[in-house]
């Protein structure tokens, strides 16, 4: 049985709750054991880097150090967490001044870190550790006929991941195809959703959200599949507002793990699908298990 350390990050305990629920369900179905990293702290995300770079590395560093003790790969499903942890790990190696400074911190806090922690994304694990054959074998109700726009967002393949192509990632496409879905050609798959700009500069954020949803629709997607809690939040929560401002764009936005979960036979409730603002029920109802 495969085991990983699990780093939920703040979002999977807040707006991205459904991501956690569906992720845990899917991994369980695949006989993968996830052990939550004990006493993890916030990765620092993108905002902290703007205030204090070294402390941002230190925040990530504490998690890396805690994980290293366990000698397991660290699973970070949230894009921001994945990027920040990876970046910290890299920069500690690349910049001696970062390493030196953190060393002081680690010593004071009674931690040790030698740089061996591997930070992994669920896509990476599903494709490379588990494999498409294994995933196909678990499918109970294939998502036949479901047209999906695979939306990766920015921070997964850019700039530190090595498991997929930077310009044109395909790992999620492969996974969803493996469970029977139809993937529409979606050249915007790594375009930015605007991140926190929706909150800070609404007009900017809304236009980015709108174009993403509009193009998904134009290419025939019934549903947009995401891998990032912030992307999902932006596209889901502000869809209404974007539609009002730039023209109707109604499209459910779900996590790829929710789609995998459906195919594995979990119920909408188990996968947190009911937490969506824009209901996915209409599109996905036919794949739901018949109530016992």
């Amino acid at each position: 049985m495969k085991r990983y350390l699990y780093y939920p990050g703040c979002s999977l305990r807040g707006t991205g709750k459904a991501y956690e629920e569906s992720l845990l369900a899917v991994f369980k179905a695949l006989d993968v054991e996830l052990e939550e990293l004990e006493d993890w702290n916030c990765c620092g995300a993108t905002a902290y880097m703007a205030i204090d770079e070294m402390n941002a590395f230190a925040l990530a560093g504490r998690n890396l150090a805690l994980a290293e003790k366990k000698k397991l790969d660290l699973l970070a499903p949230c894009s921001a967490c994945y990027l920040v942890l990876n970046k910290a790990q890299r920069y500690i190696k690349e910049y001696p001044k970062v390493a030196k400074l953190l060393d002081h911190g680690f010593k004071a806090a009674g931690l040790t870190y030698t740089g061996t922690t591997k930070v992994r994304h669920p896509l990476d694990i599903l494709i490379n550790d588990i494999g498409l054959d294994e995933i196909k074998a678990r499918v109970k109700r294939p998502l036949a006929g479901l047209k999906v726009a695979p939306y990766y967002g920015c921070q997964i393949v850019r700039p530190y991941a090595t498991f997929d192509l930077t310009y044109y990632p395909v790992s999620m496409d492969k996974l969803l195809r493996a469970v029977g879905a139809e993937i529409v050609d979606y050249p915007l798959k790594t375009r930015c959703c605007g991140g926190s700009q929706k909150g800070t500069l609404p007009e900017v954020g809304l236009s980015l959200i709108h174009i993403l949803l509009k193009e998904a629709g134009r290419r025939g997607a019934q549903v947009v599949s995401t891998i990032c809690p912030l992307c999902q939040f932006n596209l889901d929560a502000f869809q209404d507002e974007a539609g009002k401002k730039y023209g109707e764009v109604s499209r459910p936005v779900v996590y790829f793990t929710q789609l995998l979960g459906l195919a594995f036979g979990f119920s909408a409730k188990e996968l947190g699908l009911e937490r969506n603002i824009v209901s996915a029920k209409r599109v996905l109802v036919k794949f739901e298990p018949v109530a016992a």
Partner: protein
Amino acid sequence: MAVKRMIKYEVERDPQFAGWVAGVIGGERVRNCIQCGLCSASCPLSPYMDYTPRRLIHMAREGFKRDVLGSFTIWLCTSCYSCTVECPRRIRVTDVMYALKRRAIEDGVYPKRFPIPVLASEFGAMIRRKGRVTESWLILRVFLKTAIIRLLGMSKLGSKLFFSGRMGLVPESIRDRKQLQTLLDAVETHKEVAA
């Protein structure tokens, strides 16, 4: 129509600032820029920027500190890393943007009630205290500090999120807050020693 002086005099240049930019983490290659504009072209936010990233990089390496730090551009960067990945000269533009944001906050030249720097600092404070971020509280605090009116407009969405269980109101925290603070303090102290 008001007329603005556009010419730049050499005295307005701050060579030290230029040197500082080239010395920050990720800034080591700014002098390699060939001004092709690929960063601007690949940036999802460049349509809204006052200076395109390409221009900003050149202004920074030439030392036009006031214009660079006063620019809206740095606050629009969402860290999507498109520019960093695409740059044909392998300049870590995103890291440079981070450094400029930090410098602007340090020098106190950022737009005070503009929400992004506020978000960033509120975020930082929350982590220092609790070790984790509770999104609902974070958003609340940012809006309280910047735009109360808009917060009221958002109440509908807020309640939707709350009822779908996506808005936890109980603040999250880590167990060993002391360890985290010791870590951050130690880094902080040595940073000063090193500087």
